């Protein structure tokens, strides 16, 4: 077994995040008073710490933390991406991967051989030192790779990590859902659907495990 790797993050940058310990027990770490000055060591499943810092920095430029609200950093997007890459999605378990691999126009979809894991590993090599740049330099770097498959995955996964159900490791404390007024899965809107024409109806968000009252399996944990 490879040596365990961790990402160390200051508690104050994360709203709260679900982490698994070695025996796969889930616990919620959050930036409450008790943890205020602490830093969190979050176990990584795919990235090494250097890669995680680069991916986190890039995701933060795609979905920045700024005057319009929290962003990728607070939502724990990098933790979400790490878990996706470690799971079946990252290894292309559900993609047709038989050859030959031919070039084709964009409208035929991604035709490459590389898996998401390989695309990230290679793509992050090209971002060496990115986390040390200032924001303007970071944006200029991303603009140069905007047309790459790596960037389009990073952008898509950043959105996923902002707005997924928190059971997937992103959208920590539902900061993404609160940002846009999305309530998560709601079992019943019968009385409300015709009641709020033209007015915002914003129920308090809740994740699937809270709504269903039990643990629901996430695809990234499939063996």
């Amino acid at each position, binding site marked *: 077994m490879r040596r365990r790797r961790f990402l160390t993050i200051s508690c104050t940058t994360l709203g709260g995040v679900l982490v698994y310990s070695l025996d796969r027990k889930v616990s919620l770490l959050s930036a409450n008073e008790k943890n205020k000055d602490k830093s969190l060591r979050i176990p990584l499943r795919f990235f090494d710490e250097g890669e995680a810092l680069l991916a986190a920095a890039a995701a933060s*430029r795609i979905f920045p933390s700024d005057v319009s609200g929290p962003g990728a950093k607070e939502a724990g997007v990098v933790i979400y991406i790490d878990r996706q890459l470690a799971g079946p999605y990252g290894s292309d378990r*559900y993609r*047709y991967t038989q050859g030959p691999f031919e070039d084709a126009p964009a409208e035929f*979809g991604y*035709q490459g051989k590389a898996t998401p894991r390989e695309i990230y590993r290679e793509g992050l090599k090209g971002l060496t030192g990115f986390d040390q740049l200032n924001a303007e330099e970071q944006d200029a770097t991303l603009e140069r790779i905007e047309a790459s498959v790596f960037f389009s995955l990073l952008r898509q996964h950043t959105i*996923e990590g902002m707005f997924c159900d928190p*059971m997937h490791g992103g959208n920590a404390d539902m900061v*993404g859902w609160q940002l846009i007024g999305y309530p998560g*899965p709601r079992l019943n809107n019968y009385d*409300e659907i015709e009641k709020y024409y033209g007015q915002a109806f914003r129920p308090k968000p809740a994740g699937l495990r809270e709504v269903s009252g039990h643990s629901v399996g996430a695809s990234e944990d499939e063996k």
Partner: protein
Amino acid sequence: MKTLRKADVVIVGGGWTGLLMAKELGARTALSVVVLERGVPRSTDKYADDMDELDYAIRLRMMQDAAQETVTLRHDARGRAVPLRRYASFLPGSGVGGAGEHWNGQCPRNLPDFFELYSRTKEKYGVNRLPEDHAVQDWGITYDELEPYYTRTERLLGLSGKAGNLRGQKVEGGNPFEGWRSEEYPTPPTKLPYFSALFRDGAKSLGYHPYPVPAATLSQAYTNPDGISRPPCVYCGYCERFGCMIGAKAQPTSVLLPVIEKKKNVTIRKGAWVRRLVHDAAGSESRVRGVTYVDATGNEIFQPAEIVFLASWTLNNTRLLLLSGIGEPYNPGAGKGTLGRNLTHQVSFAAATAFFAKPLNRFMGSGASGMLLSDFDGDNFDHSQLSFLRGGLLEARNTGAHPIGEFGEVPHRVGSRWGSTWKKAGIEYFDRVGRIVVSGEHLAYKGNYMDLDPTYKDRCGDALLRLTLNWRENERRMAELLTEKTVEIARAMGATEVNTFPGLRNYDSRRYQSTHVQGGTILGTSPESSVVNTHGQHWQAANLFVLGGSLFPTGGGANPTPTILAMTYRTADAVAERYVKRPGPLA
């Protein structure tokens, strides 16, 4: 290979058509029926755990696994096809209930003239108005003949809606363009999301005729003729790509499975991946003897049968016949063969993405709660001065906006796709944007067809199906006019800004359109121009019946499931009442 005991009936595929046939034959005959479904079991009471956008709507957990089997695509017969490495432009389902579990449940009927497209067009505009490359032909069955079966389908599903034409009498509030119907919908229209109400008012102000979407998501509790009771829809917004956790949406596991499970003569075998239909040597008197499949543990099994129904998803019906060597593959160059011809895909696109000042509460809704209009469908508007034929339906629904798929849709003027400006606009417009969607007819062309791919194989080593498919000028011009009309409606709804559909160029496998792919085993009145007769009975093998969208000779604007189920009922009647007593070709 292990040979099992002979069954009277084998049905390949446990989706809408396969399970409807199993229910009908199970209830009306003493025949032993085996349904072979390659996917997993599913049940309505498990679906509350599926309300997760990432795993179901993005990672597509209910869909066919492309790693096991996909299709290849090219735009014309000169090109080299490449595989669709992920499904995207259409999403075939897998598991018991098939795509019927994760559909939206929009259920308009097809227009009467759709079934006689060739002769009606010729009569009204002259045959020269059909595109040069067209392969349009009549169905050989008319709307009037199908009407009783549509009615049975609507009672089965409990459709919620408002009739616009009751036995020829126009009814206020319904669709004035629809074909006559023998009775009112079983249940009244569903509740209406705000966005759909804006569409209704905007469309009316322009003189159009919006009407409630005929919905398989029930407006009120309903008990169908089989005694199946379902509750009203709660507008949770988890229809498309999800199963309905309370069965308010008609889906095979809530409507058909409870009836089938009580029939001792019907068995559903899961994990059965059918590879071939076994038949006697080719010839006009050929018979199918059964099917071979690989079971969940990898064993090859032969299941003999007296009657075989091919009821898998539309594309796989064609593929299994090609792999089995039943019928002559279509060759457009030589103009020979029929198997694989007339591939169509509903021309579906977001014509106008409209931005509003007020919030829409888009997370509430159902797959079919909304408004439609048919003013620009089929030949409901005059085409004599236009450069194309036919048209499509315009619709405004709230299917339940989920944030991963929906975040980031911002007015074009914003200009960026990431970073602070984009994020700010994304937050501002997340709940202030709605899409008006066009569902248009796709004419059949000689050059749009299917055959076996020479290069790529599935997990068993069997050739993948190859689609040769692209748009023609008729669809492109139709899309242009319908987009123009849709944008006018969006403005009348009070949209502050509108993103306009950029137009159809080449067929784009990345953009989800609809799962309404048709053709390949088309029905007709002659073995020269079709694969099966109007009962779905194969011209070369009288004990083989094909069910589903693969029978459609042209693609409709209206979603195909009601028509597919109506035709399945018609075949069930013919088999149960006539074929079983006297096997042979049905007239």
